[in-house]
């Protein structure tokens, strides 16, 4: 402990996100880069350069960026929820199953004469409900979130299969289909929803208790509990939000394909968790940034898109995401040890 006592002079300006309101764009950029990890910015830049110079000529093209954006949207909306859960010290593996279930549900609503609003609310409600169940089991039931959500991953997927008999729900509702085709000033609805999700939570996190407790519980759950923070209630909130955003992802996926697919969005948790960890969030909780997740997503989506354009077999995609995940965790571990040494 004596080294802790000797750290007086460490001129550390690093601060927890959401707890500091320094003014000045430069200060904000410096803080962000140091929290997200400068490495990510470098590899993101290098990646663009490589695909631009060595990849397919179509790589630098608006239409391709829109394709990347659409791909990002599916993983990205639910990645916001995953970031929240991981920063708060949790883990959510069930997002892919939730998205499939919600996608099927929202497609079924419009196919049975429901409105568009009813459809999206159904998707959000399905997601939020499963998320709350995850939160309740993890919090009140004191079950490791990895186990909880591994269980609900299987259960929810199973329920989706049972309810549909593994048949896709094709949507003929025009408004629903149009959401997947129309754009707002050239921007697909999916990308718009992605950006709005990031902006909304980017606004909430530094300004409300939601964000404060997310970091506090992830940083030291016992300390937060001793301070009177109702841990289990907040776990309901965090997992509930994650589930709800997974539900939103399911809705977006369904309108993009004009189909609810019970076997859809399988395995997206791999890419999503990779992006979150790449973005600087710690698996130990307490650390991470939404912006980091956004950049991590950009890196992964661009990587997978660039590989395809460069003529690399899609089979290699999984290898690339898996390797990125391991590298990201190795990096996280290395950074943690470096920080622990002061």
């Amino acid at each position, binding site marked *: 402990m004596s080294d802790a*006592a000797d750290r007086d002079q460490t001129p*550390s300006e690093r601060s927890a996100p959401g707890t500091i*309101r320094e003014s000045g764009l430069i200060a904000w950029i410096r803080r962000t880069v140091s929290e997200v990890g400068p490495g990510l910015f470098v590899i993101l830049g290098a990646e663009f350069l490589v695909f631009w110079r060595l990849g397919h000529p179509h790589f630098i093209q608006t239409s391709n960026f829109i394709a990347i954006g659409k791909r990002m949207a599916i993983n990205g909306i639910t990645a916001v929820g995953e970031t929240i859960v991981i920063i708060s010290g949790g883990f959510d593996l069930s997002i892919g199953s939730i998205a499939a279930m919600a996608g099927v549900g929202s497609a079924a609503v419009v196919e049975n004469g429901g409105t568009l609003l009813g459809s999206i609310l159904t998707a959000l409600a399905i997601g939020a409900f499963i998320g709350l169940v995850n939160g309740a089991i993890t919090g009140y039931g004191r079950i490791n979130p990895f186990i909880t959500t591994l269980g609900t991953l299987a259960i929810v997927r199973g329920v989706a299969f049972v309810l549909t008999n593994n048949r896709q729900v094709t949507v003929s509702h025009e408004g629903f289909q149009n959401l997947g085709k129309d754009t707002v000033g050239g921007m697909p609805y999916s990308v718009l929803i992605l950006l709005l999700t990031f902006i909304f939570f980017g606004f909430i996190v530094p300004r*409300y208790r939601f964000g*404060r407790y997310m970091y506090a519980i992830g940083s030291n759950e*016992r300390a*937060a509990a001793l301070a009177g923070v109702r841990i289990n209630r907040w776990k309901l909130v965090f997992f509930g939000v994650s589930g709800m955003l997974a539900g939103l992802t399911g809705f977006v996926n369904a309108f993009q394909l004009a189909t609810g697919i019970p076997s859809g969005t399988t395995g997206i948790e791999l890419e999503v968790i990779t992006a979150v960890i790449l973005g600087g969030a710690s698996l130990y909780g307490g*650390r991470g940034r939404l912006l980091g997740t956004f950049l991590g997503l950009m890196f992964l989506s661009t990587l997978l898109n660039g590989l395809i354009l460069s003529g690399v077999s899609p089979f290699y995609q999984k290898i690339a995401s898996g390797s990125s995940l391991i590298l990201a965790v190795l990096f996280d571990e290395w950074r943690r040890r470096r920080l622990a040494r002061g």
Partner: protein
Amino acid sequence: MTDNAIELHDIEKSFGPVEVLKGVSLTVPPSRCYGLVGDNGAGKSTLLKILSGVHPRDAGEILVEGEPVDFNTALDARLAGIEMIYQDLALAEDLDAASNIFLGRERHKGRGPGFKRLDHKRMHAEAAEVLESVGSPLPTKRQVKALSGGERQLVAVARALEFNPRILLMDEPTAALSVEKVNVVNRLIARLKDRGVSMILVSHRFTDLIQVADTIGVLVHGKIVDEFDAASHSMDDMTTRIVRLMSEAAVGAA
């Protein structure tokens, strides 16, 4: 006559067949610091846990400012004006000092129920104020993990003070500090007394305790075997006295 801050009468506690506390009585007058010395296993932590509402006692009486109290939860103890500072300080290391001090009791902008925005400016200002009042100012925007051991201690104390406690319990307050930093705790305790806070400090490092406490109690095998006023004894006196008691206890146990 003013009531004592806290009085314990014949506190007993057993865990199964093991008698941990065998009738502990002690009295802390207002704005005084009581130092409880004892070896590992003497029952210090158990006593603190009873006083902070973690464990119920088996027998005996606790009076806070003359009123008998009963704790079933840590919240009961807090409501009775007792705050506990754990040896590990229980801080959220990734948050800054101000966020830790106001954790669970954030200041908000605006009135009324619903979703209120955090008032960062006010929390930093108030945190700086309370830190200043107990010791030295420190950067309230710095993450706790970047603070020194002494600074962390100040943050933990500042947080406890935000609950307006009448009695502060501190478990091994000097354990995390280097020898020179003990005078930080010394100064801190003086300031706390000025604010009318009474303290019970528990440590096995009695050389630290006899420098800061008004009264010293020696806890051996669940009983207070000696108690004396620190002001009326010389350092050497107290040291020999405690060492003798503790070594007797160790021999007796063997």
